[in-house]
């Protein structure tokens, strides 16, 4: 190419060396149709009076899609896309302005030959050619530009809308120099650093140093072409950073590092709180005193149990998981599980039901069972709680028993008091009555009668004393601590007979022991008293039996030790069989004794958990029968003592 500064170019300071005349364009240059046609803008010369097109260049022709010949037949305003009348008017206005001032500039929408409208930027100039007032319109197709601008604007809008609507996100675009090219997104504001502050600056210049330290190595990796994610905190917020390299068009070189940062603080907090809540649940589960088991609802297979379950039922966790409660034989009967489920899994189900369950070692437990339907990992499950109340129930039963006993005792006491006061009055009446008689007899000087009077008074007083001491004895049964031990009944019988040896020999009574005597559990002294009273009774009521005989023996019985004392004496009318055990009931009013003996016998036996009754003898006489609970086969312990007053006593040392 020609170098500047050769031949024709004037040197600085020197006048131009031109041979052409001043003010005239160079002719070789001037033959300018080429130039005219080479212009990038369309040029249309027209007559402002009518708008008639006088000349067009190639570009104009191309713009309008018409041959120059076609164009020359039209008026400029006719090429307008707008309404014809408006177009003509408006264009005329612009034309006038151009004529008057020398130029006008405006945007105009033309229509191509194919009907397609397009926007242009129009400059009207007064034509320099000739002396006529032509106007030249320089028409620049702004359509593409406008479209491009519009596209760009739309794109921009789309981009902005996208970025604005990114949930809790920010986009950072960073170049190889670690310079922030672009940053946008709703999270940017939250960071406290403005977009304007960051864009155009390096990360070192615009971001906090500890944050830069965290992301710089990541950016390096991205710029090297890696794509990955990381969770990094910013102040007290948490973000997930997605690092994406942006390659050039060839795909070989990383031009930008794109970082999409998503605020995951809430998610992390939710996860934290879920984890804490799970930990809390786990702690409760593990430390609960009640046994808890989680089972699949469909198959009843145990999925999880807590330590209390292991303790309560004796199954280790590893042994229970994977089995059903039926396989572990936990239910007392096969239908129990269905019943419990049916009761608890309903709309208005009670909070719990009382049910029994079996331990591994076979013992039955009383429990309060509750059931909740829960979902674990989308599987329907039952959360089942079992509270062992066996001890409570035992205490409750004991309490009820004691209460019943207390109530019965109170009633008995009332009856007792009533009977006693009534019956103590009797000897008093005797005493006072005979004191009166004594006075009368003294007045009459009848010493014989006086003596009998005094005797009567004395015996009545003695009777009262005996009555009172017997009553005391009776009331003491079951109250004071007694010594309970395992006894040989044979020893008890022998002791009783020894005490009665005088009466036996006096009455010439033959006593026979007709069987072996088993062991019983009870109070030695009291049981001896029972046998003694019964035998004494038998002896007393022999009547005029020439061969008085008393038989003592044992009857077979599966549940009790049953012992009898039978005599061949006068016998008792069976109608009065029960009355004779009443307080102060005497079979023979003239007999010795207070009528308390049999009442005592009954009381003692009841305290031992037994009973007594009378049967008519085979031929004559009567048979008194009493029974005691069978002692347990093992050594006696307090827990196995028979029900009744004995429960309150302490076992003797050595037993």
């Amino acid at each position, binding site marked *: 190419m020609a170098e500047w500064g050769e031949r024709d170019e004037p040197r600085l300071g020197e006048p131009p060396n031109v041979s052409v005349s001043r003010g005239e364009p160079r002719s070789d240059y001037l033959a300018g149709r080429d130039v005219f046609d080479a212009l990038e803008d369309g040029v249309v010369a027209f007559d402002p009076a009518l708008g008639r097109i006088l000349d067009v260049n190639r570009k104009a022709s191309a713009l309008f899609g018409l041959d120059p010949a076609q164009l020359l037949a039209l008026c400029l305003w006719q090429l307008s896309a707008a309404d014809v009348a408006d177009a003509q008017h408006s264009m005329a206005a612009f034309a006038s302005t151009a004529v008057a001032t020398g130029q006008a500039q405006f945007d105009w929408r033309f229509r191509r030959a194919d009907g397609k409208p397009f926007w242009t930027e129009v400059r009207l100039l007064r034509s320099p050619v000739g002396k006529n007032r032509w106007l030249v319109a320089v028409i620049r197709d702004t359509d593409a530009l406008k479209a491009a601008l519009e596209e760009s604007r739309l794109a921009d809008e789309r981009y902005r809308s996208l970025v604005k609507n990114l949930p809790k996100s920010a986009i950072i675009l960073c170049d190889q120099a670690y310079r922030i090219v672009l940053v946008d997104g709703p999270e940017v504001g939250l960071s406290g650093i403005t977009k304007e502050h960051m864009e155009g600056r390096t990360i070192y210049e615009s971001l906090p140093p500890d944050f830069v330290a965290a992301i710089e190595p990541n950016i390096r990796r991205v710029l090297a072409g890696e794509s990955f994610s990381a969770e990094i905190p910013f102040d007290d917020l948490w973000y997930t950073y997605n690092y994406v390299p942006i390659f050039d068009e060839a795909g070989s070189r990383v031009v930008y590092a794109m970082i999409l940062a998503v605020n995951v603080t809430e998610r992390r907090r939710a996860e934290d709180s879920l984890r804490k809540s799970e930990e809390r649940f786990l702690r409760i589960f593990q430390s609960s005193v009640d046994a808890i088991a989680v089972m699949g609802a469909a198959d009843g297979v145990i999925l999880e149990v807590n330590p209390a379950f292991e303790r309560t039922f004796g199954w280790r966790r590893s042994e229970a998981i994977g089995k059903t409660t039926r396989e572990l034989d936990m239910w007392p009967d096969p239908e129990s599980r269905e019943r419990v489920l049916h009761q608890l899994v309903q709309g208005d189900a009670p909070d719990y039901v009382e049910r029994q369950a079996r331990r591994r070692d076979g013992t039955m437990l009383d429990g309060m069972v509750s059931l909740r339907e829960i979902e674990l990992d989308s599987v329907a499950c039952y959360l089942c709680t079992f509270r062992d109340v066996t001890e409570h129930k035992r205490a409750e039963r004991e309490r009820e028993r004691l209460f019943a006993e207390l109530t019965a005792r109170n009633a008995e006491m009332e009856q007792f008091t009533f009977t006693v006061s009534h019956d103590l009055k009797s000897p008093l009446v*005797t005493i006072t*009555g005979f004191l*009166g*008689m004594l006075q009368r007899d003294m007045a009459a000087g009848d010493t014989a009668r006086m003596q009998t009077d005094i005797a009567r008074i004395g015996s*009545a007083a003695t009777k009262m004393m005996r009555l009172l001491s017997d009553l005391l004895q009776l009331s003491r049964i079951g109250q004071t601590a007694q010594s309970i031990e395992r006894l040989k009944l044979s020893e008890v019988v022998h002791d009783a007979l020894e005490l009665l040896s005088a009466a036996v020999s006096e009455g010439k009574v033959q006593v026979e022991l007709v069987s072996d005597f088993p062991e019983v559990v009870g109070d030695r002294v009291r049981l001896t008293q029972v046998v003694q009273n019964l035998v004494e009774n038998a002896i007393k009521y022999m009547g005029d039996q020439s061969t008085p005989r008393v038989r003592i023996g044992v009857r077979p019985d599966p549940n009790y030790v049953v012992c009898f004392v039978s005599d061949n004496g006068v016998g008792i009318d069976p109608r*009065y069989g029960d009355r004779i055990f009443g307080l102060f009931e*005497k079979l023979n*009013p003239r007999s010795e004794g207070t009528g308390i003996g049999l009442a005592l016998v009954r009381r003692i036996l009841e305290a031992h958990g037994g009973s007594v009754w009378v049967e008519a003898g085979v031929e004559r006489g009567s048979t008194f029968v009493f029974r005691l609970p069978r002692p347990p086969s093992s050594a006696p312990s307090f827990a196995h003592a028979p029900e009744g007053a004995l429960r309150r006593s302490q076992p003797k040392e050595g037993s």
Partner: protein
Amino acid sequence: MSISAEEVLLYVEDDPDHAELVLDTLSRHKSPVRVVHVEDGEAALAYLRRPDAQADPRPRLILLDLRLPKVDGFEVLRIVKSTPSLSTIPVVILTTSASDLDVARAYRDHVNSYLVKPDDYDSLDALLQEVSDYWLCRNEVSLEAVSE
């Protein structure tokens, strides 16, 4: 109308000392009456049902203790008052019990009189005198009263 010597008072009492007191007192009363003493309710009923009217006539009065062996006083009262042939015999209960319940029960079962054994001799004496005066000499007393 005077009472013949064969009028019977059926006395039911199990306590021998009490019986002694009562029998002694009755024997010194002016109106002679034969006292038949039995010691339990069963014997009392047995006497009352005896067919031999001559040897053991129907008693003019039954003096009854409450607590008796075999058949108790209340039972005797009930049977006497519910048996048509016996129901007109007056029954006087003489007992140590002052219990309201016993009194109420006795009157419910149509006892004619309920007396509590006094605890001194003179009172007992006076009480029995009045009993025999009233129940055994009844007709004479009422006639006298009317004529006043």
